């Protein structure tokens, strides 16, 4: 079953058109990557799904058209978005950030259980639970951003460059935790990543964007075999 489908999606910042027909689909429990150079429109594609930019085309989620909804309505439908730059609420504590993540939920007991799960998944956060988020390291903030998104118990997670600005070993650890999260929770994921090596540890398939439209798509194995992908994104 397809959970999310983008069909010829366009997007604008004011009068400037940035997406020029992006199509992709994410199956239930699947993980799909979006690759592409700087400025290709990866972040904008995720913003289009969340309703944070003006869009055209068709965006179908769980069988209904969600194009034109506001970000908070999209969140209500079970889509969590870890934005580029993490979106951490700096002056709030780690615990408060996680509580914001669970804002829409009423099941207090399950929320408490999920909080424990997050702290087990990201032990670094456990020691810092009462410190303000701005005092965390970059890697810890990224973990917090992912944990906060998970606290909403989404069906689909949009993840924008979780490796941005992190040391390679930290980035690897973050992706390892996300992979475990995927296996244990079955949350579907749409993952933007510049570092294709990292992305391929997680996704089943991917699309490649160039100046606002997809130019390639395929399974991870197919893409890894292609020369142009190797040259452009896998370092030779």
């Amino acid at each position, binding site marked *: 079953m397809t959970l999310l489908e983008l069909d010829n999606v366009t997007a604008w910042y004011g009068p400037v058109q940035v997406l020029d027909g992006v199509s992709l689909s994410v199956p239930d429990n699947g993980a799909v990557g979006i690759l592409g150079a700087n400025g290709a429109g990866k972040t904008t594609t995720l913003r289009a799904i*969340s309703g*944070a930019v003006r869009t055209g085309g068709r965006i179908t989620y769980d069988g209904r058209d969600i194009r034109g909804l*506001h*970000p*908070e309505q999209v*969140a*209500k439908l079970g889509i*969590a*978005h870890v*934005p580029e730059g993490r*979106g*951490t*609420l*700096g*002056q*709030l504590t780690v615990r*408060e950030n996680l*509580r*914001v*993540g669970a*804002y*829409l939920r009423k099941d207090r007991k399950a929320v408490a259980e999920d909080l424990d799960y997050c702290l087990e998944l990201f032990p670094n956060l456990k020691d810092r639970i009462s410190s303000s988020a701005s005092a965390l390291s970059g890697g810890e903030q990224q973990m917090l951003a992912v944990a*906060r*998104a998970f606290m*909403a118990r989404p069906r689909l997670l949009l993840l924008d460059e979780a490796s941005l600005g992190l040391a390679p070993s930290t980035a690897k650890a973050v992706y390892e935790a996300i992979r475990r999260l995927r296996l244990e929770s079955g949350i579907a994921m749409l993952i933007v990543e510049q570092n294709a090596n990292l992305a391929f540890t997680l996704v089943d398939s991917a699309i490649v964007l160039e100046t606002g439209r997809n130019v390639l798509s395929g399974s991870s194995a197919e893409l890894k075999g292609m020369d142009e992908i190797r040259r452009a994104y896998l370092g030779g």
Partner: protein
Amino acid sequence: MDTFIQLVIDGLALGSVYAALALAIVLVNQSTGLINFSQGAMAVLSAYFAYVLIGWGFPTILAILGSIVVSFLLGAIVERLLIRRFEGGDPDTAVVVTIGLLTLFTGIAGWIWGYNNRQFPSLFPLETVDILGAVVSVRSIGTTLTIVGIMVVLQLLFQGTKLGLALRAVAINPSSAAYSGLPVGRLLMIGWGLAAALGAVAGALVAPALTLTPGMMDTALVYALAAVIIGGLNSPLGAVVAAWGIGVLENLAAVYVPFIGYDLKIAVPFIILFVVLLVRPQGLFGRKVVVRV
């Protein structure tokens, strides 16, 4: 000594009025990043609402509660219909808009109710009590305690409730908060509504002493802004402490520093302001933020 105690407690009461307005300014700044220069004028309108209700025969306390409710709605509507268009845009434009509102609201009050001074009943009895030999008015004590109560309630709201957490989250990063499903627009309306409700309290506290006029809050607004800057824009406690400090020092200086007297005492908060900003540019209690005024 007894004069001193009397001056301090009256100063606290005076400072409490500035504090109510300062808290409202901090609240708006915390939830939208703006300085609302029309906060004082909105408080004047609130006081006139209460005045009208009293005229209709409501008891003072009910009239004030009624004006608090109406003011909440007024604040929320102003945010929704006007300020919303300027949020996320150029903050300088938004500040000019709030200055425009200051003129507009003052004008509306003058147009409807005229510029004559009107008597406004005090919530507190006009009696005095004896504290350590000093004669202190019950009104001063009541005014100060009211602000302490409001501060406690605000603290509980922001630190202890889901609504308070949501208001803070939206203030820090609205677009990120929206990704967690927080209703950003509604929370901003609530922030402005709460600020206007606080302003209504300030209006009701100051009106009995100054009598009700459209310009009643002009000086208080200037002092409240000074308190907000001294206390740190993002610290409710700082704003209240600074406002009390201003009220007390203003009173003491007028009596004990001969050349200041009653004419120059308006300068007192600004002398404090300059000294504090020289030593701590982020204010006494504040964290560093870029203030664009």
